[in-house]
């Protein structure tokens, strides 16, 4: 199940400030709900874990994150990750490209992720993967923006909050359900 997800958002901050955050894989990983870096192998290679719950399936992935490219000039970063569910139920790989563009009112963050999921999770098909990634992305954006504000007010980063995976899922599920049975798609929270 290979999916390509393109997302973008804007932040009212200068590009260099946003870039400093985006090129730090540890920071980026912490913005992904349920994810954490567990070990740094070197500057460009990390070990990490991510927990995702889709419906009845809780999946704890362990894997590696590799910084493939940091293009200072174009403000572009590429992260490659791959991992396997610790119970051997699924595996996933991901290529994430993040690119910044300076705008009049701040910075546009464009992300393109190509995710390939194999195993039980993939049986849910595109609808669940897109929905789960939607919810995760919004959480990511929220954390990203919060962190940018923190940089202004605090020297040290705040603790990374553990994700409520169940909430992520219930939210994604309810979006799917509403799409099928009518109702608006833009209220983000769960039932």
């Amino acid at each position, binding site marked *: *199940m*290979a999916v390509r997800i393109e997302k973008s958002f804007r932040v009212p901050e200068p590009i260099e400030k946003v870039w400093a955050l985006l090129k730090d894989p540890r920071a980026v990983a912490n913005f992904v709900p349920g994810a954490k870096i567990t070990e740094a192998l070197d500057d460009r290679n990390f070990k990490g874990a991510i927990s995702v719950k889709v419906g009845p399936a809780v999946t704890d992935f362990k894997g590696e994150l590799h910084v493939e490219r940091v293009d200072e000039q174009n403000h572009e970063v590429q992260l490659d990750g791959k991992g*396997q*569910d*610790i*119970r*051997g*139920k*699924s*595996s996933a790989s991901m290529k994430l490209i993040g690119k910044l563009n300076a705008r009049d009112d701040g910075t546009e963050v464009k992300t393109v992720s190509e995710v*390939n*999921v*194999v*195993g*039980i999770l*993939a*049986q849910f*098909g595109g609808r669940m993967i897109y929905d789960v990634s939607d919810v995760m992305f919004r959480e990511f954006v929220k954390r990203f923006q919060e962190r940018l504000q923190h940089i202004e007010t605090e020297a040290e980063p705040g603790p990374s909050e553990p994700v409520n995976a169940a909430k992520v899922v219930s939210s994604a599920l309810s979006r799917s359900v509403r799409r099928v049975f009518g109702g608006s798609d833009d209220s983000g929270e769960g039932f």
Partner: protein
Amino acid sequence: MIQQTSPEIGGMGHSVKRKEDRRFLLGKGNYVDDIHLPHMVYGQLVRSPFAHALIKSVNTEAAMRVPGVLAVITGEDLAKAGLAWMPTLFFDKQMVLATGKVLFQSQEVAFVVAETRFAAADAAELVEVDYEELPVLVDPHHALDADAPILRPDREEKSNHIFHWEVGDRAATAKAFEKAPVRTEVTAVFQRCHPAPLETCGCVADFNTATERLTVWLTSQAPHAHRTLFALVGGIPENNIRVISPDIGGGFGNKVPIYPGYVCAVVASLKLGRPVKWVETRSENLQSTGFARDYHMRAEIASESDGTVKALRVQTLADHGAFNAAAQPTKFPAGLFSICTGSYKFPNAFCEVDGVYTNKAPGGIAYRCSFRVTEASYLIERAMDVLAYQLNTDPAELRLKNFIRPDEFPYETPLGWSYDSGNYAAAMNKALEIAGYRELRKEQEEKRRRGELMGIGLSSFTEVVGAGPAHTFDIAGLKMFDSCEIRIHPTGKAIARLGTKSQGQGHETTFPQIIAQELGIPVSDITLEEGDTDTAPYGLGTYASRSTPVAGGATSVASRKIREKARKIAAHLLEVSEEDLEWEPGKFFVKGAPSKAKTIQEIAFAAYTNIPPGMEAGLEAVDYYDPPNLTFPFGTYICVVDIDKGTGEIKVRRFIAVDDCGNIINPMIVEGQIHGGLAEGLGIAFMQLISYDESGNVQGGNFMDYLLPTAVETPYWETDKTCTPSPHHPIGAKGVGESPNVGSPAAFVNAVVDALSHLGVRHIDMPIASWKVWQILKEKGVAA
């Protein structure tokens, strides 16, 4: 002609209400999952999440620590007992529990046994399997590529090729094509679909350590054959195995193979000395048990300019998944696919099929179908329409021109079948008349002028059922006869036991109706039992519409044996010679003196109380019936669709089904069978596909993705019939269960293609969802 019996007797032709329905309607059915035995424990399979991967290790420690868990069986454990692999029904072998590697998503890897279902399910989650993913082969068209991964290194042939099979005259067919002024072709995929019976597969295996007897309650369409296979593979003496097939909630071919879960439950019961229940979930059923079809076909027709067909050439690639677990007669690797010349007089034909392995669930079972007849019928009925478009002629006229005529039966087809009887034009003309075909065509023309989309689809199929004659047909060596044993009690009531097994077909009603017809015993006085191998005579079971053609023959012949003995007893009681007696259903009477008579009930009583000197007591008979030929039911289906040109949404406005299954035992049950099969055909044509993504992940493995038609989608079925009896069958019956599933997909698809034919559309692969039609309409500039 079948003599009409009174409604009280309820012989053939009476719409006797189904005797089994009372218990089903009251919730008193007894299915495998209703079996509860003292000290029973529960099994749960651990399944592979990957389509192709090496198994590096299996760690069962965490699972074993779950309270209530009694055992975790792995492939390596089974290998020690020589049971890691089992033979399939078609010269291949299949892993029971994987060793070394897995070959499809949801493949069986380990079996957890626990005191409760919940503990077993929880523990199965904790079995840790370390996989190393391998390249996956999904597309059968790439199975034979030089760089394709070899899926089955266990085989001698280091290739994904399973078999090549051909029939017919290749050279003569090629020559006919060279000479023919008109040539047409169609490439069509009959997609992988699944019978999805409402009851999934399962069993309760109970090995009694004191008696050393194994009793298995099994969702089995063929309990006797399964008993023999358990004995041959498991090494348990056959007299110590009892297979009981209780009520079955739909089979449709899905319950013909032996599945790994059954074997694991038996092994676990042997190991633990306790009854072990294993019942699959819906997703397990859809993802791992026998799928159907997955035939990638190409048909070419050569014809004269006036539409007279001269030759048919068919090439097919068959995707069998990871193991060749097709349930087919031994001499027929592609089943009865060579019925593909259909209802038409092809002087020349050639057909070849190649089977390949892919990383998908194994199977290739006959889903309400006599072994690939559905694929064949779909292909020829599609190809005839494509030819009609090419010749710019009416598809009904083209068919009528090429039908085998009634006086040409028995008809020898160029691919080796001998059709028993038929009157194809009669069925088609009746269907055309009911439909008001000419008016429909006129309406279509007018609608086209207004830019509206309406289509009329025809399918005039010929079926082949009732496998089969012993000289040609066997499954795993077992000849495909079937059997019936009838015992008449002293009070004139009866019990009959058969080698078949009803899964919803109404056997408890229809077989007693045959006996009622032959002996005049009221249908309500006859009990029917099937499915218990300790009591029923040996038979090959129920699938491929074979129960009536084969076991129905046995029932009729066994009844007639009883009638011959009854004649002797009646002669004794009436003190006349046998030749002086005449029979009418229910009694023998003296010729010319109808009042001097003995009823079958009086005769039965005498068989136990007043036995003629020198005669054995009792009144019973058994017959093992070997049919002289197959039977060839047929019919014409007409489907009318309206398509929304803005959305591509298809509405089946009308569906006319004229079936000819020879003499009918119970018209109501026949109609019910046709309704059910048409609904399944609708699902196949418009809704159903077990697909796999490029990594081998199942994309149709639950009822969210694999859709069943409900009352909302199902149109009103207009059914009717013609009657052309089988000349070789004792009661002239042909079998009907699968006709609607075999004949209808082509009618649905032909209707949709017909609605779009003026746009140049010649074929759309099933399932035809609205989005596919919408895409075409958009391409053609019709939809916005």
